[in-house]
């Protein structure tokens, strides 16, 4: 490596000691005894470009030869000078005071200082910061000025020459490089100059400096040319304004302007010197300079490229500063954008390169192997149940589309998500591709299987299982027999016999009007019943899960129902379907004798919420007579229901978890179970209703049942049905016979008797209030929402009133008088919390009163 022209051939010297002697520095002792041979270790290569780097050979170009450029500019300036009659010096001397005032901020530094700054940006700043103000009014020559700052030497002498004799006539350089201008350009220049002329001073020196300026640009391609130092210092004219910020543009245009300028300057000479305007313009100059500097600094090469574009320059020249600024900003923005894009692209390329080192690590067979594994996990014979939720979800979303199940021919499907509306394009494409691939693989596997004709489908799909790991697997110790569950065991009772028993019981229920007691003791199967402890919670849960499984199987089977009803396939399907339904029915234990346990197994099964939710699905699957059986059993065991047994918890004021649970259960019961019951009652004949009511008396404490929401609801629908039947408005059943009416009448009287004197306790509001501890709480407004809880009670009472005889109605009114008055009073006197509560109270009362043919407005307090 050589620096600053040192000879670098030392190692070669060592090899050829003879040559070394020719050098004046060849005093080294290479190769001699004491030499440690470190020189050998030095890297002495790569010297080829030294010359290019550090100069010393050939033409190195002038791209960075700012000073040199300036020098030539000087030359041109002088060339132009003789064309003007007045020597600028004199002029300036004529108006020294004004100029000094103008550039007053001057730091009186000698001009040459500025030239030392080598960097383009700083140079500009410097020259602007000081040149404006530098007292170079007098063109005192600075001798050898150029040598200080022009290391590029070749033009240095030239510069020096040109610089010192500022006014010496020179051959006009511009003549040597003529340039053809378009008419447009000339026009624009004229316009611009005319504008300036109006503003600028008429100082004689101006014209001179203008001409200098105009010639300054000439042909140099570098943007470093903006320090036309002499011009600025000598001519503080506003003419600078145009050029200064546009150094980059000058190169093309300045030369072109020259002739035009010369003429214009003549006119300018006559104009007055306006000092203020000059100052103003000076400020503008500074701003624009800063801009130009910024552009040069940020833009770098691209900026230069853009700004040097002839069209743009032309354009920008004709614009005012704001427009130019806008253009500059725009250009900057574009540059930045381009740089960002480039950066992005680079990063991406880098990432790809990073990843590419893993390219081709897997062979094609590896990939196939993995695909096989994945596919073997995905493909299933039963895509619907394997990915149940995804299938249902897609079915819900794409309602109307033909089945969402992904299927491959007849072979099955994928057990993963379904092609929904997932974003267009690539993904869908990928899905399709995968589907096609999977299909291909599946088919290939099938063919292979056929060829081999043996081995299970999945065997080998995951590779051979080595014998060793197979043996290492833990041995199965527990042998759980299918069907060994106790729950399932005793479900296999003789259904036929049970059926008979229930029919008998239903018959008994029909006779309930005469002798409710007899109804169940007369059960012929009673003697055979083996009493069992009630199902444990765990047993119930196991049984429910089993039921759900059967239920799902049935639903699955229904989806696969064969089209052709005549075919053997359908026969088989039908048989399987029937069998499953039978199993479901048996497992639900509706047919288990009543006395088996308390609660009855069936009641136990619908104790958990999921049991309640399963019930409607079950009943949908079974036939109508069986539904009636279910209804009978439900009514007979009504008092055993958890929602009835736990109902007292609902009357507790404070919010406990138990209460919340009971609330949920009750809601689930009313939502899931009750609609079915309602549907059954809607079509029931009167004798069935009488039988049900009779069973209800039998089953347990009617009053307690009536105090629960489900119980009250049941009673209400039964009574309402009777009203409908009595009116004969339902035409699907034959009108009740006189015996049936008679039977009903006695049952109803029994019911009325049971309930009378306890009617008030049916109201949740009453129960809550009485359960409150005596004390402040007693007088405070009871918890809100009780009026809504009361509503079913009022409804029931209305149904009761409709069925009641005259005397019974009177008894009703007498008993409820207090409650009605309380409600009406508090509603009328505004003792209620808000309007909705008031309206609820009135509506409740009216429910009952309307049944009697009265209205709350008739009550006078």
């Amino acid at each position: 490596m050589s620096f600053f022209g040192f000879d670098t051939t030392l190692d070669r010297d060592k090899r050829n000691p003879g040559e070394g002697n020719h050098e004046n520095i060849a005093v080294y002792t290479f190769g001699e005894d004491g030499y440690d041979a470190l020189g050998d270790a030095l890297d002495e290569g790569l010297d080829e470009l030294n010359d290019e780097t550090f100069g010393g050979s050939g033409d190195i170009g002038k791209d960075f030869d700012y000073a040199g450029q300036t020098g030539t500019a000087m030359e041109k300036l002088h060339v132009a000078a003789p064309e003007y009659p007045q020597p600028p010096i004199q002029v300036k001397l004529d108006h020294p005071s004004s100029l000094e005032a103008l550039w007053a901020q001057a730091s009186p530094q000698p001009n040459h200082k500025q030239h030392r700054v080598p960097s383009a940006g700083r140079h500009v700043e410097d020259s602007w910061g000081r040149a404006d103000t530098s007292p170079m009014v007098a063109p005192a020559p600075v001798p050898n000025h150029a040598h200080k700052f022009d290391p590029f030497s070749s033009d240095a002498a030239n510069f020096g020459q040109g610089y010192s004799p500022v006014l010496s006539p020179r051959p006009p350089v511009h003549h040597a490089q003529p340039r053809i201008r378009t008419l447009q350009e000339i026009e624009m220049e004229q316009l611009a100059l005319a504008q300036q002329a109006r503003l600028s001073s008429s100082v004689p020196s101006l014209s001179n400096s203008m001409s200098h300026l105009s010639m300054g640009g000439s042909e140099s391609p570098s943007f470093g040319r903006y320090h036309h130092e002499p011009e600025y210092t000598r001519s503080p004219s506003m003419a600078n304004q145009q050029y200064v910020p546009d150094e980059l543009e000058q190169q093309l245009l300045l030369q072109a302007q020259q002739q035009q300028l010369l003429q214009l300057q003549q006119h300018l000479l006559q104009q007055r010197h306006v000092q203020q305007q000059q100052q103003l313009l000076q400020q503008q100059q500074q701003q624009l300079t800063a801009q130009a500097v910024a552009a040069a600094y940020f833009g770098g090469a691209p900026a230069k490229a853009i700004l040097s574009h002839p069209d743009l320059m032309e354009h920008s020249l004709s614009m005012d500063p704001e427009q130019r600024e806008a253009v500059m900003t725009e250009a900057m923005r574009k540059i930045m954008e381009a740089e960002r894009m480039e950066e992005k692209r680079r990063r991406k390329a880098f990432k790809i390169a990073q990843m590419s080192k893993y390219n081709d690590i897997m062979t094609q067979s590896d990939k196939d192997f993995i695909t096989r594994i994945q596919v073997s996990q995905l493909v299933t014979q039963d895509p619907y149940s394997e990915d149940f939720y995804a299938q249902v979800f897609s079915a819900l979303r794409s309602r109307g589309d033909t089945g969402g199940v992904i299927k491959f021919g007849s072979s099955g499907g994928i057990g993963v998500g379904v092609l929904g509306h997932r974003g267009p394009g690539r993904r869908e494409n990928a899905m399709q591709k995968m589907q096609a691939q999977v299909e291909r693989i599946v088919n290939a596997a099938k063919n292979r299987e056929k060829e081999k004709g043996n081995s299970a489908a999945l065997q080998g799909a995951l590779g051979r299982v080595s014998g060793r790991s197979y043996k290492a697997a833990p041995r199965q110790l527990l042998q759980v027999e299918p069907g060994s569950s106790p729950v399932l065991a005793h479900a296999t009772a003789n259904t036929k016999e049970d059926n008979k028993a229930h029919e008998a019981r239903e018959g008994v229920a029909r006779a309930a009007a005469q002798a409710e007691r007899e109804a169940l003791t007369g059960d012929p199967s009673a003697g055979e019943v083996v009493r069992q402890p009630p199902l444990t919670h765990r047993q119930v849960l196991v049984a429910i899960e089993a039921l759900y499984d059967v239920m799902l199987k049935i639903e699955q089977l229904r989806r696969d129902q064969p089209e052709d009803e005549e075919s053997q396939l359908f026969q088989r399907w039908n048989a399987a379907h029937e069998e499953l339904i039978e199993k479901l029915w048996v497992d639900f234990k509706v047919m288990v004798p009543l006395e088996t346990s308390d609660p009855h197994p069936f009641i136990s099964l619908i104790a958990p919420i999921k049991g309640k939710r399963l019930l409607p699905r079950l009943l949908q699957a079974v036939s109508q007579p069986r539904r009636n059986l279910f209804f009978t059993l439900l009514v007979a065991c009504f008092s055993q229901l958890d929602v009835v047994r736990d109902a007292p918890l609902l009357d507790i004021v404070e919010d406990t978890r138990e209460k919340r649970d009971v609330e949920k259960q009750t809601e689930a019961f009313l939502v899931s179970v009750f609609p079915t019951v309602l549907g059954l009652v809607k079509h029931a004949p009167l004798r069935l209703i009488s039988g049900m009511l009779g069973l209800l008396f039998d089953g347990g404490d009617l009053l307690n049942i009536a105090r629960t929401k489900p119980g009250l609801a049941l009673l209400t629908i039964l009574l309402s049905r009777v009203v409908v039947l009595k009116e004969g408005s339902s035409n699907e059943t034959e009108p009740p016979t006189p015996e049936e009416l008679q039977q009903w009448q006695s049952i109803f009287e029994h019911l009325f008797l049971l309930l009378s004197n306890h009617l008030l306790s049916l109201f949740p509001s009453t129960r809550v209030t009485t359960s409150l501890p005596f004390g402040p709480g007693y007088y405070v407004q009871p918890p809100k929402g009780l009026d809504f809880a009361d509503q079913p009670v009022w409804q029931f009472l209305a149904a009761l009133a409709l069925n009641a005889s005259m005397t019974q109605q009177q008894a009703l009114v007498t008993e409820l008088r207090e409650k009605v008055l309380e409600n009406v009073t508090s509603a009328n006197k505004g003792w209620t919390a808000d309007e909705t509560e008031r309206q609820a109270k009135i509506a409740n009362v009216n429910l009952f009163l309307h049944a009697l043919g009265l209205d709350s407005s008739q009550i006078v307090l």
Partner: protein
Amino acid sequence: MADVPSQGVQEPFDLIRLSLSERVFVKLRGDRQLTGVLHAYDGHMNLIMSDVEETIMIVEPVEGAPEGEGIVRAVKRNLDMLFVRGDGVILVSPPSRT
């Protein structure tokens, strides 16, 4: 998914399945426990529960007392719906019946 419970309980998860939509007690790492209604679970024992009461046991060191002896304070909070990540689950059980 179909046949398992009809053949009885065959794997531990079948026991959890029994508790679906039932109230369960879940013990978690970090001295936490939950009671709530179990809605769903998976092979990682991720759980989805509703109506959850979470109890966090916090041991507050007592000044002067030896290490390990402090006041155990239970902080409770209620959540309507909760997704429990399976890696924190220690045990799932039906709540003790009273």
